[in-house]
């Protein structure tokens, strides 16, 4: 009886300890990232990912950090390295958590970074892939604010290019903003980005 209690207590302490280590590690990595130490952040997320090899979250962050760093990157070699690393980790994350809408829109983001770098080369092949990824994500999670926002922004870009009305997409952004207030996930360090972006886009809509 007591033995059981001890064991349970001990195990709990151990888990709490490792959970604590995970939390600390992730917090530190996020802090490095917000300090602009992209490489250090990416390396720490990678170390956590390698140690926690059944958790998609740190893999996701390696992909996000490298994708975000690629927007505006002019050096083709560096950009390719970052985006290939992003894709590698995003693929592992997708294997750990299939049909995850956050990962689908992350993959689309990698494609968008390629298109932003060289639209003439990558636009024609990657645009349909993105359209498919956003459709898939929306089918799985129609109430996920980041999915609604990403798809709306993507559609808005296309509509703007062809000189079409962007109002319906602005409405989607507004809806995304509402969804942000109620969106909650039990998973620690679940992606939270997007609210500020939605506000920015909405401002452009009204402006």
């Amino acid at each position, binding site marked *: 009886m007591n033995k059981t209690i*001890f064991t349970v207590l001990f195990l709990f302490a151990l888990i709490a300890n490792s959970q604590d280590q995970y939390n600390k590690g992730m917090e530190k990595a996020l802090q490095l990232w917000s300090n602009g130490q992209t490489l250090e952040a990416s*390396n720490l997320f990678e*170390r*956590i990912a390698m*140690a926690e090899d059944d958790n998609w979250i740190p893999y996701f962050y390696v992909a996000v950090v490298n994708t975000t760093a690629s927007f505006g990157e002019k050096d083709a070699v560096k950009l390719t390295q970052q985006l290939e690393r992003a894709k590698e980790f995003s693929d592992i994350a997708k294997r750990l958590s299939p049909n995850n809408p956050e990962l689908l829109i992350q993959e689309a983001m990698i494609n968008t970074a390629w298109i932003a770098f060289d639209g*003439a080369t990558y636009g024609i092949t990657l645009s349909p892939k993105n*359209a498919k990824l956003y459709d898939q994500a929306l089918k799985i999670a129609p109430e996920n604010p980041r999915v609604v926002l990403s798809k709306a922004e993507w559609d808005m870009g296309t509509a703007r290019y*062809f000189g079409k009305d962007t109002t319906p997409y602005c409405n989607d952004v507004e809806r995304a903003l509402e969804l942000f207030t109620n969106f909650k996930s039990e998973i620690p360090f679940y992606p939270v980005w997007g609210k500020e972006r939605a506000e920015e886009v909405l401002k452009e809509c009204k402006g």
Partner: protein
Amino acid sequence: MTGLNGYLLLQFKRMVMKQLFLILLVSVTWASSAQTTIDGRVIDKKNGPVAGANVYLEGTYDGGSTNASGEFSFETMETGTQTLVVSMLGYEPHYEMGDVNFFSDLSISLVEAINSLTGVTLSAGTFEAGDNSKVSVLKPLDIVTTAGAVGDFVAALQTLPGTSTINEDGRLFVRGGAAGETQVFIDGLRVFQPFNATANNIPTRGRFSPFLFKGITFSTGGYSAEYGQALSSVLLLNSTDVPDQEKTDLNIMSVGTGIGHTEIWGDQSLTFNTQYINLTPYEALIPSTQGIRWNSPFESISGEMVFRSKGEKSMFKLYTNFNHSNLDIDQEDINFEDFVRFQLTNNNLYFNASYKHFFENEWTLTTGSSISWDSNDITVFDTDIDAHETAAHFKLKFRKTFTNRFNINFGAELFDIDYQETVNAPDESQFESGFDDRLFAGFVESDVFFSNDLAIKVGARLENTTVLDDFTFSPRISLAYKSSEKGQFSLAYGNFYQNPLNEILRFETNLISERTEHYILNYQYLNNGKTFRAEAYYKDYDNLVKFDTELPEFSSQFNNAGFGYATGLDVFWRDNKSIGNLDYWVSYSFLDTERDFRNFRERATPNFAPSHSFSLVTKYWVDKLKSQVGFSYQYGSGRPFDNPNTAGFFAEKTPAFHNLSFNWAYLIDQQKILYFSVNNVLGFNNVNDFQYANTPNMEGIFERRAIRPAADSFFFVGFFWTISTDKKSNQLNNL
């Protein structure tokens, strides 16, 4: 008793557990207090610092990144034997096992990883059209948005160096080779009749719609041992693995109409395209008059279907193509007062099934077969010719990747060709000819990357053909050396064998394989949207088939006494960065070739080998008009022809060839495109060749007529509409 005993036992247990807990607690505290510092420096092969490397203990969070001098330092609470990992993009990961106490003041030297993107590539002789591949000089879209190509990817390839534009033929003539010296493969399997059947001097087109393919590799020489039976060149088409989305494509063109659809169910997908082409309305509006009269212009109905099934570790594809075409034409001939009538009906059915499986331990198996049935029903004057060809290709290939520096490819294949032709003359006499061939081949090839700067491909191919009872052995080697960050040199050498063409084998099988030897030196320079390539080559032809009649026939005497050479320089320049929205490429080919083959009385430059060829292709995106506007200009110097009125043999040349083409693709909206193109806008009067009379006239002179295109210019208008669920895709990549 039991009670006491039980009590004591419980007490004892409590004590033990308490102590155990204490020990555990102490050990944890002790461990946390004993930190070890791990430090050192990461360098590359040349002793330079590697900055930004991730250095850590495997399975833990403990680690750090190297600074600008390659130094790292971090603390850990781990003890005992651990694995230290150093990971850095562009380098092979480094593992070091040992006690943490010894992980101090380390000096770790990283080995560069073989990088397919920035490293050396084995690219001598090849042009690739793909997405990310470094050797891609063309994007898939380029194949189809080239002015003058009108959706025919073969016509687009004719703007690359190493090809000669033989206007009246339409097929690929590579580096002094005849059209029959190029073979086409889909997913590694042979296409036996890649071009539509047509009449003499009426150019043909490729049978396949380019948008079913994700990659096209065009090799103008020195290609892999995996491919054989081509003296000059191979064109490799790879079909799409997984289509992006479900959609329906409709098109209405000045020459016909088509519909296509893609359906996806999870990992399976099906795409079909059907097309009906009829030149009657076009010919009624703008008749072709130069040396021809259409009785019934070219008409064809064709269908293509691809089924794909993707497994976790496998890929299955089934490609089918059916084509029925007919035409009825009267053509001018110097030997006859009246035009000569030519009627043709062609049926072609082609299947291509391939299966690929990825095993553990980096083994890949690829297998498949292609089968084609082709029949031509031809009537010239009152003579009927019925030709049937049934051909099949079976292939089994293995690939083992040992490391990313070393892999090996080997396989076996079988070609089975059965060709029969029946000629029914007006006097009711009948001639039959034909042959059966089984060709067995085995190949082995290995890629070795010594570093990111030096790589070699070595291979060999062994063939046995039953129709000739001939064994051939073809060694192939290709070497690449990266001389600077942006430039590389390549060398290639190979032996290539090919059976004589069907038109010869059906009369005579007591021959041996025709043979070429290729020597290639290539320099390539890539710099941010700019590509420069120069390739010098020498080709030695041997055992070419000769015969003693005008055309191969029943009574001809055949031998393998023919020979020849081709040498030249191909230059390519492409730039899509320097001028905003403008993308252009320039090709120039110099060709010096002579051969003694067929019924040549001596060595001479054949009619299909102009000395100089030049192409300029431009594409300009006009954002305001949502349009892509393109111009292409092609030039070919005069082509040799034989004038029987002079002593020389193939000593005269036609006037030079010029063609300026224009196209305009306008995006009406996301899903509708209007496309317009004109070939030979300026209406140059090109002369391809001259036909001389078989017998001299009264004054003892052989009369001649110029062989000219049926019409100088060609117009094309098309409307393309895509219906897809996301309302965004269009057929721009189909044009």
